[in-house]
């Protein structure tokens, strides 16, 4: 049984095949990256994998269960969490509360107990608050505990989304361009964070254009182009693939530059 199985998945918008007949298997405990040109269908794929879109065709199986056609909160219940390419935060709340919402699935709270404020609830609230604070420290947001979400800088917000996703205690975490808008120094911290996550037993799927990050952390890379699979394999193989260079990486020089990923500066992704 594979951890995540995707079978001839398609999504059509009007005439656009954003994802077309896509099949792949992801193994547990690894970091899988999905790369591909702009508009290749990466975000759409994540939307399918979290139930935000329902597929035009195909199936999604997670830990052996067929999740096709379920609502997003059902995906979350099964252990899949994500972040967004465009921030989707609760800007009407504090940072800490944002993360606490992530604990929603693990709280037993009926309407009656909410209205009457059972003592049990207060205790659980305290625990929830503590755990959320812990997660914020974990992603490096210790200094923003009481801050309103709408008063935080962009880089912090990106990490806040990760903390919130972690609060759901996912087994599969999908990150959509977490490094966009971060400077190279901050991207480096992200690199380490992803490493620690896998250590926690979370399987990570990373969608990213920052090749240093991708090449550095991925166990396995899936390359999409026009909604289809272009290539797949370990980082070293993918970066040498001429089709990938042609469609995505650009000049062969850039690709070669990445070849020395370990030693090379982790900064620029351009020339």
């Amino acid at each position: 049984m594979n951890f995540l199985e995707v079978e001839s998945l398609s999504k059509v918008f009007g005439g656009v095949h954003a994802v077309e007949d896509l099949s792949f298997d992801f193994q547990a405990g690894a970091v899988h990256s999905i790369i591909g040109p702009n508009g290749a269908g990466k975000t759409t794929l994540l939307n399918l994998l979290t139930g935000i879109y329902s597929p035009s065709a195909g199936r999604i199986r997670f830990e052996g269960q067929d999740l096709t056609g379920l609502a997003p909160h059902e995906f979350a219940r099964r252990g899949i969490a994500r972040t967004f390419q465009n921030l989707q935060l609760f800007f009407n709340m504090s940072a800490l509360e944002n993360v606490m919402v992530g604990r929603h699935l693990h709280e037993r709270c009926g309407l009656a107990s909410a209205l009457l404020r059972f003592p049990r609830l207060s205790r659980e609230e305290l625990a929830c608050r503590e755990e959320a604070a812990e997660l914020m420290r974990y992603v490096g947001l210790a200094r923003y505990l009481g801050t309103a979400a709408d008063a935080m800088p962009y880089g912090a917000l990106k990490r806040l989304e990760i903390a919130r996703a972690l609060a759901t205690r996912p087994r599969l975490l999908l990150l959509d361009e977490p490094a966009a808008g971060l400077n190279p120094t901050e991207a480096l911290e992200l690199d380490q964070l992803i490493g620690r996550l896998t250590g926690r037993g979370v399987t990570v799927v990373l969608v990213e254009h920052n090749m240093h990050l991708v090449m550095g952390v991925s166990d396995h890379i899936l390359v999409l182009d026009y909604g289809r699979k272009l290539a797949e394999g370990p980082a070293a193989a993918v970066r040498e693939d001429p089709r990938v260079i042609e469609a995505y990486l650009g000049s062969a020089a850039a690709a070669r530059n990445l070849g020395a990923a370990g030693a090379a500066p982790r900064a620029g992704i351009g020339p």
Partner: protein
Amino acid sequence: MSAQFVQFLLTGLTVGAIYALVALGFSIIYNASQVINFAQGEFVMIGGMATVWFAAAGVPYAAAIPLAVAAAAAVGLALEKFAVEPARGASVVTLIIITIGASIFLRGLATLIWDKQLHVLKPFSGDTPIVLGGATLLPQSLWVLGVSLAIVLALAWFFGRTLLGKAMLATSNNRLAAQLAGIRVRHVLALAFALSAALGAIAGILIAPIAFTSYDVGVMLGLKGFAAAILGGMGSGAGAVVGGIVLGIAETMSAGYISSAYKDAIALLAMLAVLFFLPSGLLGRRGTERV
């Protein structure tokens, strides 16, 4: 039997065209500012009442009507300048409450300047009914239908073909980006309010000979116009018209064939049914937002 059906249809069209005109006013302001202007009905009132007033003062119709439309447009401008613009950045609900306040204010003002009586305008081309397939229609209804049609076409052209029209849409969607593109957003907003006030006033003038006018005609027409705009799809010009006509016909048909006591309820139920299947109305924009 079929003459009866034709009669219902014609009546529905006339009533619907009125709703459509009011709905168009809602759509324009919504397009330029995302505000649902609950004072839209008051423009209808101002149009009718001002025309009556000018006419009573001896001004011929040909001058009284443009004067009344201009008066309404001026009120629209004032509304934008003194009530909507100062609240820029406030939430949509706050803006709605501001327009509700404005509508109460304007209604109060109307009772002071004018009165609480009902007034009537002379029909533009007489009172003799036109017979069509056994059914009758007042010439004034033709005016309503004709002017609505002309306005819809003009607006379709304006929003669909002119850059200024697009600039209006852009302003409502993203004010910052609109400014960066060199659009004078204040002017665009002012224009939208003036335009929609003028449209409301025209609606008010056209229907005053049929359904009279008074300081409080705006309340019910505003409600029906809002319903029509939603049914058709908020922000869509063609939608406003389709929504208005569908609503008008639904009302008359249910009055004619089902129950006149419940005709409004039936029309609203029909609207709800449509929304359940088309959550953004008959012709509303769909699916332009994604994550």
